[in-house]
């Protein structure tokens, strides 16, 4: 723990992520504007005191929309990544420990999914499943599932040779118990790092899909749809696109620094180097 706080970048990452989470959860209650109600009297206004991020082409306050949109993007990304982490890790663990035919097949399917470029796979799934929020989360889950499966499997393969696991086997502990109590805690940390990274990229994927019009549908706010709006009148009112992009970048920056920090703390080699 102490090492974590010694790493300046990690602390900044945690702080930024915390700030973003706070803004996203609490912000909409504080701000007076509505994210979807149009106000034709205040179209495309540049940033001001009343509208810190300006207004968009429907007169909606951009900051409010960004915060609502961030809620959606985060919810989608977190859901998808957590689902992927749970299912994928479980699959990887079982495959590494129990082995057998089903495991091999599952790994092949996972490899297959992994061979598609992520965004292409996401797009494909959106076409198949139809546009909409739940489907985006499902797509993100399917994209990350192979990553977690492979990661969990590789690490479990190493850990299962450790003496304490073999001792547990000899003592007659059930397979489930061994998996959850002996192996899982030892591989949890890198999985958490991947979850953080995954959430960051999940946001990007969702934003990308929505930006193209294949994700969250307007008028629902999502970081991607806001950017798509902003793109329309980019030259006249660049602040919409710019600021929503800045918002995404800040969130990603926080998550990336945080995950780097966790990783640096866990890897003693890098620490000793200083």
């Amino acid at each position, binding site marked *: 723990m102490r090492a974590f706080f010694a790493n300046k*970048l990690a602390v900044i990452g945690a702080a930024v992520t915390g700030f973003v989470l706070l803004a996203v959860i609490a912000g909409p209650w504080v701000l007076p504007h509505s994210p979807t109600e149009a106000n034709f009297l205040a179209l495309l206004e540049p940033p001001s005191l009343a509208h810190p991020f300006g207004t968009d082409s429907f007169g909606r306050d951009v900051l409010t929309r960004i915060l609502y949109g961030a809620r959606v993007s985060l919810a989608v990304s977190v859901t998808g990544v957590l689902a992927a982490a749970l299912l994928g890790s479980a699959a990887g663990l079982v495959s590494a420990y129990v082995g057998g035919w089903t495991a091999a097949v599952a790994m*092949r*399917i996972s*490899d*297959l999914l*992994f*061979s*598609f*470029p*992520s*965004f*292409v*796979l996401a*797009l*494909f799934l*959106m*076409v*198949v*499943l*139809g546009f909409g929020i739940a489907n985006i989360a499902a797509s993100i889950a399917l994209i990350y599932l192979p990553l977690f499966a492979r990661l969990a499997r590789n690490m479990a393969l190493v850990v299962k040779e450790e003496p304490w696991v073999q001792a547990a086997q000899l003592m007659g502990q059930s397979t489930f118990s061994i998996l959850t109590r002996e192996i899982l805690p030892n591989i949890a940390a890198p999985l958490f790092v991947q979850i953080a990274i995954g959430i*960051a990229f999940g946001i*990007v994927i969702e*934003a*990308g899909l929505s*930006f*193209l*019009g*294949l994700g969250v549908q307007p008028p629902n706010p999502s970081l991607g749809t806001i*950017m798509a709006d902003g*793109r329309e009148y*980019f*030259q006249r009112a*660049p602040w919409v*696109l*710019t600021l929503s*992009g800045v918002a*995404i*970048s*800040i969130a*990603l*920056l926080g998550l*990336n*620094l945080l995950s*780097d920090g966790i990783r640096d703390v866990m890897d003693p*080699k*890098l620490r000793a*180097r*200083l």
Partner: protein
Amino acid sequence: MPTINLGPASRRLGGALLIAFLGAALVFFVMRAGHGDPALAALGDQATPEAIAAFHKRWGLDAPLVVQFWRWLSGALVGNFGMSMTVAGGVPIADLIGSRLPNTLFIGFYAMAIAVAISLVAGTVSALYHGRFIDSAATGIAVLGISMPDFWLSYVLVYLLALGAGIFPSYGFVSPGDSLAGALYSGFLPAFAIAAPMAASFTRILRTALIDTLYRDHVRVARSLGYSRAFVFVHYVFRNALIPYVTVIGLQVRYLLGGTVVVERIFGIPGIGALLVDAAFGRDYGLVQACALTFLICVLIVNFLVDLLCAALNPRST
């Protein structure tokens, strides 16, 4: 250079082919299972049963699914993907893909070249001066690079360099077939937008790999023998850091190809990515399938080549 043992290489090739086949099957069956009837998409919800039946007959959709798959696959193997239904009605899909694939590949290679070039310099400098200011600065920029969505970065670049300073065009693309210089010029911003996050992660992996290797025993032995710093760096440090570096580059190819999708749309580049988006909107399922499959095959080919390269670099693989 050590000889590459052909055994594992042909095994990998077999594995890749298997995945390509499974991928084709996945693409085909999932497509059909998910969004059902292409007839409804093409003709609209109000279509009469007769019109639908006629559509089915015309496009061979009345045969059993497996037969349809077989027809599609055998056609695909000889390059016949059927015709585009809605995006470019009646045009053979293979032609569409054929005319656009070179553009996407060009942008892809361009982006990779930029990312590798930047990371070689930045990674080396950060590693050699690690712990000092320039290293922290490079790391900071790298994290920033990873944190910006590529489509947003595209707009920032356009705003600053195209609309603002007028150095690069903000839209449009000159195909490399027409003019290489034109392609390099018009393709720079899109390639850079895709390259930035990759450059960031390549730099970090190179830096880590170099620093790791710098403290290995064999480097110290080499210095003790009086070899020059440059010699030791190239042959002992850099050479051994190449393996993890190249591995990560291989892993990022998936991202690279995915990134072209949005960037092509933004900059109006006639490539496979933009085609895929058009097909998705147009519910042109045949085209969507073919594009997805094309991407898959590209990834498989590049992965295979990268695997070969890694095996050649690593004497332990024989």
